[in-house]
């Protein structure tokens, strides 16, 4: 399943282990690590060099709780120094249990409260369009329980109806939504006009293929299924 041995992925458990003190969110961190890796390693055109370019790709971490995997990937890819991980959440650190873009500019959004990333992503797509940057990808990562928030329903409907081929929503599904989604999560997006894919959230090649699915004139939703939240 992991074809990218020795590319840096094998570094992530060590980097994550540098961060301690957030056991409550440990599961949340581990559920996203493979999606985050594939996005930054193979899908997004975001590098430490172009991270402030106006026409860059955007990654909006909506699921801002449990950001250890996120920080680990950012460290591995050279956006932040590894040394920063050890004292995360201290008063001196700019790495908190929820990312703050005013402290950490590589984070496109400050997040933690559920239901904000996808709506912000839609505004970002509108803004990039108006600026003439029609090829920049905007990818947001949400949790399956996060879809309970009504703000996401507002966003799913509008993005689907308007089109928005620049937009991708990745839903990491660890079956944690209280009332569930009959017919599966992808169906919520399909009925609103999204292209959807549901894949094994631990399979890097499957994730890569799904995240690069052509979706002309439509937004793309990739449901990455991982083990049920304990």
């Amino acid at each position, binding site marked *: 399943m992991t074809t990218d041995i020795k590319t840096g992925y094998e570094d992530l458990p060590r980097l994550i282990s540098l961060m301690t003190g957030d056991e409550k969110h440990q599961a949340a961190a581990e559920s996203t690590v493979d999606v985050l890796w594939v996005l930054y390693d193979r899908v997004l055109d975001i590098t430490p060099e172009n991270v402030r370019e106006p026409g860059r790709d955007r990654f909006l971490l909506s699921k801002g709780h449990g950001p250890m995997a996120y920080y680990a990937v950012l460290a591995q890819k050279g956006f932040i120094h590894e040394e920063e991980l050890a004292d995360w959440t201290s008063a001196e650190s700019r790495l908190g249990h929820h990312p703050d873009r*005013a402290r950490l500019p590589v984070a496109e959004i*400050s997040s933690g409260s559920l239901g*904000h990333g996808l709506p*912000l992503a839609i*505004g970002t797509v509108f803004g990039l369009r108006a600026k003439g940057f029609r090829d920049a990808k905007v990818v947001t990562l949400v949790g399956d329980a996060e879809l309970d928030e009504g703000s996401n329903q*507002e966003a799913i409907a509008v993005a689907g109806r308007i089109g928005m081929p620049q937009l991708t929503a990745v839903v990491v599904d660890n079956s944690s939504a209280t009332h569930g989604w009959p017919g599966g999560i992808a169906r919520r997006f399909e009925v609103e006009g999204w292209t959807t894919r549901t894949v094994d959230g631990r399979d890097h090649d499957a994730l890569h293929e799904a995240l690069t699915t052509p979706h002309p004139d439509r937004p793309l939703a990739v449901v990455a299924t991982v083990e049920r939240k304990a």
Partner: protein
Amino acid sequence: MNMRETFLEAAAEVLDTDANVAVVLADISAAQLAFAARKHPDRVLNVGIREQLMMSTAGGLALAGMRPIVHTFSSFLVERAFEQVKLDLGHQDVGAVLVSSGASYDMPTAGRTHQAPGDVALIDTLPGWTVHVPGHPEEARRLLLESIPGTGRVYLRLSAQENAKAHLGAGLQTLREGGRGVVVAVGPMLDRALEATADLDVTVLYTSTIRPFDAAGLRSAVEAAGSNDVVLVEPYLAGTSAHAVADALSETPHRLLSLGVRRDAEVRIYGEMADHDLAHGLDAGSIALSVKEFLR
């Protein structure tokens, strides 16, 4: 033209002249901006009746480097989507110009659902906001245009109530000088405050910008008047600016009377705006009685 019509006309002009500006709507006023939307389909964005998404869309636009104007009725703009105002603008450290219409009870027959007298108090819980409360359509137009440059967070509160004349200018403007007290009239409250105090020896100050609060202006007016009695006349919740007055006069023993929309009860009448003015003690006669009682 009333303030809302003036705003919509000015917004359409700004869209024509500034390619960085986008207007975000939730159906309210979409018909009036339909022509502008046809000219600027990428920059006039109606998300339907989705106020949370409307506010987050503004945040996303600002993150992409645009200057968003967000507009709907005050109850839906500030109250329904308040967490989006707090997080998707303030916490993201980006700006927008929020423009409400409806004020406290501009739609008296609509009842409580369309009233938001707590809007300014709510915005006041967030740091870094500029709050404009114009008292005349020409002030509304000017304040909108002045809010476009930069990246600040601005709340522009439009009302169907207005004064006879525009008073363009920054900070507290002195419209009358007296020695027994200082009356601060905000936005549409000016004409009635002037009428209410016509036979009183008081200073009357006016402002269409209530945040940041012109503390220095108030201190010098209090000093000039030789009186430490201050009356606030605000068109939203009574006492919304009481803390700003207390801060401004923290070195000076003073008394404060806060007039505005009642906090102690939900007024469940329909009728005309004038009926609500009476119910809240915000008609000229009630203001006169309150001020005279306070200064006695």
